[in-house]
């Protein structure tokens, strides 16, 4: 290796990117559907649509509308115009990432479409921070979305089909989240990000994503602590994206086996979006699960000074309807981003 080509080291350990103190989350916004609006995090959403169509003619158009709205509100909150944004990093759950592409077409800003299933929220945020920190862009929007009905159609059965789901199933969040990342001295610090390996522990049941994704979350969290030398206690809160009632205790147990006690600081976004009375089986899932909790609740708690340091580890199940019908087990990935109060 040629040493004269050395660039400033921004890598910690094997999987973690360290960002400068000027890499900031300038503004963020969350737009959700009706069921999410009835949930406990209602005060932290920027807009709640009273119906699943959000005034559009199809579920897919509704999802796109949610993403457009989330980006527009985030820009407004950051007092930025469209022309100041250099790039959008976005992703969703629909075939060929259509929500993201169609939204980017309307905005007229260069797009990097990304797919990480439900880990897309932190996948896009980590990459946005890296590009801004490296100077390839001044302001980057990181956005993602999911829609309960369009996801049901994509991955499962028609929405009105009367099949029974097991208690380990999860409810896809209808919503979109967007964050604007820029260089400056205001806004939350994006201090570092740990990118995850794809982990497949042989779970094949698509109605049990929590069990499938827990090992991926543990792999990324353990890598994060090893790479950074931080401990779970250094954080006020550590959340995983959508492990829900089944995956959450598994992740806790596996972390204990890895030598990390998460006990009091650990929660899961899939358990935070809805209240238990809302009949959502094991809890929430979807790109918007971690996005809604992070870009709404967590950002506001950090801005108010209630918390100092939060680690968000978004989890994604990288299956397709074809792969599980062909009997393939479910590979999963998790990406973590550390957010800190200014």
């Amino acid at each position, binding site marked *: 290796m040629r040493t004269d080509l050395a660039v400033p080291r921004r890598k910690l350990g094997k999987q973690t990117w360290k960002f400068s103190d000027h890499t900031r989350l300038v503004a963020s916004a969350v737009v959700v559907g009706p069921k999410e609006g009835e949930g406990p995090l209602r005060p932290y959403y920027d807009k709640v649509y009273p119906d699943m169509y959000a005034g559009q003619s199809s579920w897919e158009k509704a999802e796109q509308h949610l993403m457009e709205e989330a980006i527009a509100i985030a820009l407004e909150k950051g007092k930025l115009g469209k022309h100041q944004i250099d790039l959008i990093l976005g992703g969703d759950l629909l075939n060929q990432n259509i929500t993201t592409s169609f939204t980017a077409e309307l905005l007229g800003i260069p797009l990097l479409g990304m797919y990480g299933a439900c880990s897309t929220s932190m996948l896009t945020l980590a990459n946005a921070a890296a590009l801004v920190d490296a100077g390839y862009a001044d302001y980057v929007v990181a956005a993602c979305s999911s829609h309960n009905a369009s996801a049901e*159609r994509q991955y499962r059965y*028609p929405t009105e089909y009367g*099949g*029974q789901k097991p208690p380990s199933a999860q409810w896809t969040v209808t919503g979109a989240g967007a964050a604007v990342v820029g260089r400056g001295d205001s806004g939350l610090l994006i201090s570092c990000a740990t990118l995850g390996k794809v982990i497949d522990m042989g779970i094949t049941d698509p109605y049990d994503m929590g069990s499938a994704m827990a090992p991926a979350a543990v*792999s990324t969290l353990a890598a994060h602590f090893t790479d950074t030398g931080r401990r779970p206690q250094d954080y006020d809160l550590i959340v995983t994206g959508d492990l829900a009632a089944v995956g959450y205790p598994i992740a806790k147990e596996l972390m204990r086996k890895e*030598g*990390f006690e998460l006990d009091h600081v650990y929660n899961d976004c899939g358990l935070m979006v809805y209240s238990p009375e809302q009949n959502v089986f094991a809890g929430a899932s979807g790109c918007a699960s971690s996005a809604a909790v992070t870009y709404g609740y967590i950002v506001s708690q950090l801005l108010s000074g209630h918390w100092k340091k939060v680690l968000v580890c978004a989890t994604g199940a990288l299956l397709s309807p074809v792969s599980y019908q062909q009997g393939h087990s479910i590979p999963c990935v998790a990406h973590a981003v550390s957010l800190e109060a200014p």
Partner: protein
Amino acid sequence: MTKAKQSPSMQITKATYKQLASRFQPKRNVLLNSWRAFWVGGTICLFGQILQNFYINVFDFTEKTASNPTVATLIFLSVLLTGLGVYDNIGQYAGAGSAVPVTGFANSIASAAIEHRSEGFVLGVGGNMFKLAGSVIVFGVVAAFVAGIVKSLFGLA
């Protein structure tokens, strides 16, 4: 203080992980589920019987011919409840109780038709309507064919 191991590399194998994960699976109440399937499925069938008797007594159908309008009425009601967004809730509660009767079959067709309406009448509704019901029809016909062969071979006709 917790101490990190040198390599956090998931020392656990797939087999032991499956065992560990299964410990965290929520318990399914088979008895309660069976009871729900029994009473909802039974009620649907009882209602069908009432309809059949109604067609026999009021409209002069015979026991054999009354089954057609009976099934048609059940299908109509199931499609109506599917369209109103109710049948999937019944299905979640009753499981096989509402999936096995003819109303469940109607629901699988109507729900697919509604779902794919946004892709147009020909490729959307027409092409996807039997997405779920198709395999019931295919294997129903195959089973009937095999039963028919057995019946004629052994001279049961």
